[in-house]
Each structure stands twice: as structure tokens, then as C-alpha cells.
């Protein structure tokens, strides 16, 4: 039983960062202790931390490096929350990690501190699924992060709209596309990728899976390798791997709802629009979340009215044409404006009951209006 004892030393910060990174996919309390745990494997002068909430799995590698020394290889399973909390409180610098498999007990020492933690039985730790030998495409981490930031917020949050509860990930040629919608607004962004195998991909990835990947991508210059297979999505860098089950169901035909050849268009300064909308939304009520945008030759007048009060403000905006009055949920506009850079935004639409469209480079956002009498 040489593997019953495991021992390594490393820098406290390296272990803390890795534990925090995988903690995001640990199952919520009450399922089974083993799913609330992180598995730590020490072998070949590197550590691998794994965790899963049974929908999303994550692996983070630490080392090899000067501060990591594996004295006895092995595998430990330790409660994730506790481990993270203890690492945070231990003094900086060298940390000694011991695991006694027979007693399922881990000992952490750093400086003068010494902690012991009881773990669940390691044999029960679930295997993290994989995509098999699927072809991968590569995309720049910074680009992917921006794409996730600009789309994921538009995905459905309510459980009932299940098929929309994820983002459509599409790869065609050298282009990767992310699409998110909750049925009322839609966000699409594209980025260039390298596709050595020439694969075409199309799958719905749970929002949380992409958000976990986003959080784990610390170096914007690095590459992320993406693949779909075995009913799973995988995104990996040299240090981190995120695997997620795919959302089943069909993604709605989103291309048809993106208005083309809009009859009306306006150019609006983003920052001014944001602060005006924020002020106007102060007087909207939960049941009447609507601001009115009146486009006219002198500019754009934003107004809101409810039992709580009323607001009206006019800002400069380039608009030619007949006066037009549109109603929108202010949050749907603000959330999109929040991910766009300062400067002018292009807003276009086709008439009263048709959607409004904001475009910026490769990015398109479509939002349905609120009917106003």
C-alpha cells in the first residue's frame, strides 16, 4: 500500500488559486459529500485538482515548478470549501500537504499552522467525462473571453426555457460564433479561430460551463482549445480543462429574427444613453418595465412613467426621418450597452412591433420592444 501516504510541498498561493478555480463547479450542499470535494492527484512532478457538479467538470494543473516538490505521489479527496478556507488563512509561503488514505485524513502545515481535514471515500469520486478523441479548434483566450462577456448575459435564466439555457457554439471554417437568447433579446458574436482539422461544430453549451471557462482564462494571450464530442463540450488551456454536458434540444432559428435592411437608424453616444436610461429606469415599476424612446430630428427623448413617478430626458443623437416612438425594457438595453465600448452605437429598427438592433464590429444584439398603446 505504497499509495496510502501522499505528500507534497508547494507555495500556498498556487494551491489556493487552484482550489478557488475548481470550487466554482463543486456541487451544492446536500447531494453527497464526495461531490462537494476536490480530488488532488500528485504525480510526475505536477498536481491535478479536479471537481464536478455532475454537469460541469473541471481540472486545474499546478506545476511543475520550483516550489512544487512531490515527495510521495498519490490521490486525495478533500472537502473543497474547507480546503479553500484553510488555504486562505494559512500563512504565505511553503505549505506541506499530507494525505493518509487509510484514515482519509489530510494534514496541512504552513508556518506555525497545522490543520487536519477529514475527507470522503475517494473511490466514490465521479469520473469527469471527456469528449473522446474529437478534433479541436483553437481560439485566442482574450477574444473568447470578450465573446462570452458580450453574449452570455442574454441567455435565459429561468429554468423553464431549457433549450435556451445555454449558448449556441458554432464553428464553420475559421470562425467561431456564440449565440445567446432568452426569447426576448439575442446576442451574437464571432471570433477568428484556427481549425486545422476543418471541423464544423454546432452545440448548445450550458451558460455556466462557458462562464467557468471564462473565469479560468487568466492569460489573454494564451490559446484555448475547443472540442465537442461524446455529447460534451471541452475547453482547455495548458493549465485548465473545463468539460460540460451539452444542453439537449434545438436552438431557435436565430438568423431569421435578426433584422436586415432596417428602414430606420440612429447613431447614439453610448455613455449618455446609459446614464439617461439608468435615470429613467428609476421610475419604472416591476410590472411595467418600459422606457419610451422617441426619435425625432432634434434627438432622442427617453421617458418613463409609472405610479411611482415620471422621467423625461432628451439627448443628442443623429437621426433622420419621421418621428418614431418605441418602448423597451431598459434593462435589456443597459445590459447590452454595458458590454460595448464607449463611443457611438448604431441602433436600427424596422417599425413599431419589430426588434431593435445594435451592431458593433462582429457583434450584433437584437431586442424585442415592449408594446406601448
Amino acid at each position, binding site marked *: 500500500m505504497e499509495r496510502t501516504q501522499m505528500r507534497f510541498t508547494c507555495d500556498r498561493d498556487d494551491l489556493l488559486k487552484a482550489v478557488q478555480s475548481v470550487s466554482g463547479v463543486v456541487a451544492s450542499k446536500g447531494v453527497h459529500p464526495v461531490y462537494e470535494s476536490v480530488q488532488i492527484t500528485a504525480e510526475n512532478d505536477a498536481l491535478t485538482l479536479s471537481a464536478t457538479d455532475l454537469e460541469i467538470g473541471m481540472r486545474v494543473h499546478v506545476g511543475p515548478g520550483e516550489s512544487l516538490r512531490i515527495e510521495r505521489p498519490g490521490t486525495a479527496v478533500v472537502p473543497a470549501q474547507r480546503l479553500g478556507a484553510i488555504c486562505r488563512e494559512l500563512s504565505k509561503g511553503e505549505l506541506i500537504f499530507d494525505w493518509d488514505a487509510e484514515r482519509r485524513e489530510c494534514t496541512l502545515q504552513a508556518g506555525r499552522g497545522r490543520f487536519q481535514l477529514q475527507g470522503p471515500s475517494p473511490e466514490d469520486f465521479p469520473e469527469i467525462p471527456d469528449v473522446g478523441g474529437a478534433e479541436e479548434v483553437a481560439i485566442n483566450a482574450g477574444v473568447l473571453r470578450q465573446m462570452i462577456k458580450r453574449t452570455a448575459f442574454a441567455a435565459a435564466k429561468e429554468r423553464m426555457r431549457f433549450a435556451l439555457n445555454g449558448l449556441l457554439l458554432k464553428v464553420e471554417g475559421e470562425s467561431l460564433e456564440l449565440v445567446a*437568447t432568452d426569447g426576448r433579446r439575442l446576442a451574437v458574436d464571432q471570433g477568428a479561430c484556427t481549425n486545422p482539422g476543418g471541423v464544423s461544430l454546432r452545440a448548445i453549451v450550458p451558460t455556466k460551463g462557458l462562464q467557468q471557462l471564462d473565469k479560468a482564462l487568466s492569460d489573454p494571450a494564451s490559446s484555448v482549445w475547443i472540442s465537442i464530442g461524446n455529447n460534451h463540450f471541452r475547453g482547455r488551456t495548458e493549465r485548465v480543462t473545463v468539460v460540460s454536458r451539452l444542453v439537449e434540444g434545438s436552438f431557435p432559428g436565430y438568423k431569421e429574427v435578426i433584422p436586415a435592411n432596417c428602414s430606420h437608424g440612429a447613431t447614439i453616444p453610448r455613455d449618455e444613453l446609459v446614464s439617461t436610461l439608468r435615470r429613467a429606469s428609476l421610475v419604472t415599476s416591476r410590472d411595467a*418595465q418600459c422606457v419610451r424612446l422617441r426619435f425625432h430630428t432634434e434627438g432622442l427623448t427617453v421617458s418613463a412613467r409609472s405610479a411611482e413617478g415620471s422621467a423625461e430626458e432628451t439627448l443628442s443623437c443623429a437621426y433622420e426621418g419621421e418621428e418614431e416612438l418605441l418602448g423597451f425594457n431598459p434593462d435589456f438595453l443597459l445590459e447590452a450597452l454595458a458590454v460595448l465600448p464607449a463611443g457611438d452605437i448604431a441602433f436600427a429598427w424596422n417599425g413599431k412591433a419589430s426588434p431593435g438592433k445594435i451592431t458593433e464590429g462582429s457583434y450584433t444584439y437584437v431586442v424585442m420592444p415592449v*408594446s406601448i398603446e
Partner: protein
Amino acid sequence: MLARSILHADMDAFFASVEQRDRPELRGRPVLVGHDGARGVVAAASYEARRFGCRSAQPISVAKRLCPEAVIVGGDMRRYVEASEQIFAIYRDESPLVEPLSIDEAFLDMTGMERARGDPVTVARRIRARVLDETRLTASVGVAPNKFLAKLASDLDKPDGLTVIRADSVLERIGPLPIERLWGVGPATAERVHAAGLRTFADVRELTRDDLVRRFGAFGVRLFHLSRGEDDRPVVPDGAAKSIGQECTFSEDLVDPRDVLVVLLRQADSVGRRLRRSGLSARTLTVKIRYGAFQTITRSSTLPRPSAVSAELRAAAQELFQHWVEHSFRPVRLIGATAGRLQDGPGQLELFGDAGTERERRLDDVVDGIRDRFGSAAIRRGATSERESIDFRQS
């Protein structure tokens, strides 16, 4: 704070005027509306009767003594409600913010509506003209920067008057008015204020806020502000209806849940039709169930989106009921369906037209059309097939 424009519109001797309108022989004569009995009270007195000192809320016996020649009519609520609906339709057409105070009285907020509706005095004139034109009744309207002053104004030139109190003339307009004009000041309070040597609003203004609080407590604070014509209460529309519902009590407890469900689904249908007729959508559906020894429970669910589609209301009702049946069914005495958190129109529009919903909406249109022409019994969803298709798993 934004300068506000508030209208107070008040019908003149409303019930009595409706009677005089509908019965020409009553015109020009003192009319009392109310039950002519020992405990009868005057619900309304025509202006001819008021000259004799008759007032609403007076015992009929007292009014008769003051004005023996008065004609006493029992009153017909149906016609009053009908007139009221016409009047409020005009108010709601003129302003999105209408706060009803009673069957014939309302506040309208016209703030910031100049561009869309014209200045508030023009709106007030138009409302009075439209009310007269459409109901052959007269309304008095007050226009002012707040609710307190607007209500005060509408009363200054009654009947058939229009009074405007502008922001820059508030103090001189209200200064000479007796303290009794203050909203909510009854004889007892007036007595206390008079005892302090104060008769008019201007008198009250002479005192500091601290003085007033010392003498009148919390009421002193109100006096301080109102005597200066200050009142920042908002106009709060009640949104016409807060909910639309229907319920049914059975003469005996129903033991078969399928029988109850058939009734519930029909109720959901009819609630949907009433929503559509009022141009409203509901955000919630509530099922009310009474069983056993008059125990009543309600179960609510939030609809995936605001809806007036019968099929969606039925589905929500059925799901709630089915859940209750599977967990704790008892023979049912009463069942009801109510649509709540109502809003005008469909609200947030959807990006992806759902063919199923579209079909249901068209079906509703057809069914509504048939029922409008031939009555509600003319068409109904197949109740028998409905009953057979339900498979309850009772525990």
C-alpha cells in the same frame, strides 16, 4: 422637483343629475336620491334641494323636513355605473395616470403631457366638454400643481365650473379660504382650530411649524404644509382592475376531481375572454379550492409570460389543480380561477413567434367572435373528451 399639473374632476350632484337627465319631469325640481324609510340616508341631493340645506349623508327624514316638496327617488345603481364608466373612459383617454376617488371623482396627472395633450387648462376644458357631450352631465374641474389644491379648486366654482390655481398665485388664492375647506377637517377639528383663533389659511400661515405642532400634534405638520398649498402625494392609478376571476360553489361536494377540473377549465376560459375584452394580460393565475369543513386553499403560479390566451391560462390552472389532486385531494365544495398582476396589452414582445401560441390566439379570436354574436353557450371546448382525457394519479 418637477412642477406638476394635477386635475381633479368631480361630477355635479352625480346621482341626482343622472335622475334629472333621464326623467325630464325632475329637471328644475329639488331631488333627493336615497331610500325613503325610517333609516334612509340621502345619497345625493340636486342643487335645487341643496338650496334648502339638504346634503348627502343626511337622514332622509331630516332632508324631508328641510325641503318638504323634494322628490325622493330610490336610485338605480346600474345607470350610475354606466355613466361612471363613460366618464372614466374619457379620463383614461386624456391621461395615463388616473386615480379614482369615488364613482364620479378622480385625479388626473397631466405632468409632462403638454406636447401630447395640450396644456392642462385646455385638457380640463376638453374633458368638461366631452363629459357633457357624451353623458349630458356636467363636471367641475380644478387644475393645480398638486392633489390638495386641485380638489380645493374643483369645489370653488361648483356646479359646472373650471378653476385654475397657478403655482405663482397659490398663497393669495387660498389665503382667505376658511379652514373648513381643508381636506379632512371635520367640525370637531375646525372647532379646535377656531379655538386657537385661526379662521383662514392665511391665519394658520402666521404660525411657525413648531407652534402648530405644539398646539395640534401631528395634524399641525399637515396644517403647516397644506396652509401653504404644499402636497407631494402622487397620483396613484389603481389600474382599473387588480384581478379578474370567477368562482363556483357546488350544491354538494364533488368527489371526482375530473368533474371539478371541467368546471375549473371553463372558468379559466371565461377569465381569458374577459382579459381579452379589457385588453389586459395576466402575469399570475391563482386557483382557489374549498373543501371539507370550509377549508380554503389557494395555489398560484407565475405564467411564463403575461398572457390572455385561454389555452395558457387553462394549462396553468390544470397544472396547479392536478398537483393538488395528486398530493392531497379532498371532495371539493368550491373552485375558482383568478388572473392577477394584470397589465395593459401583451407587454414585452417575443423574438420567436411560437406557432402553437399563434394558433391558440387565433382560436380565441374565433371563439370570442362566435360568443359575441350568439352568446357564451354557443360554443365550448369539448368537455366530455376533456373529462375522459384526464388521468389523475391520486395518492
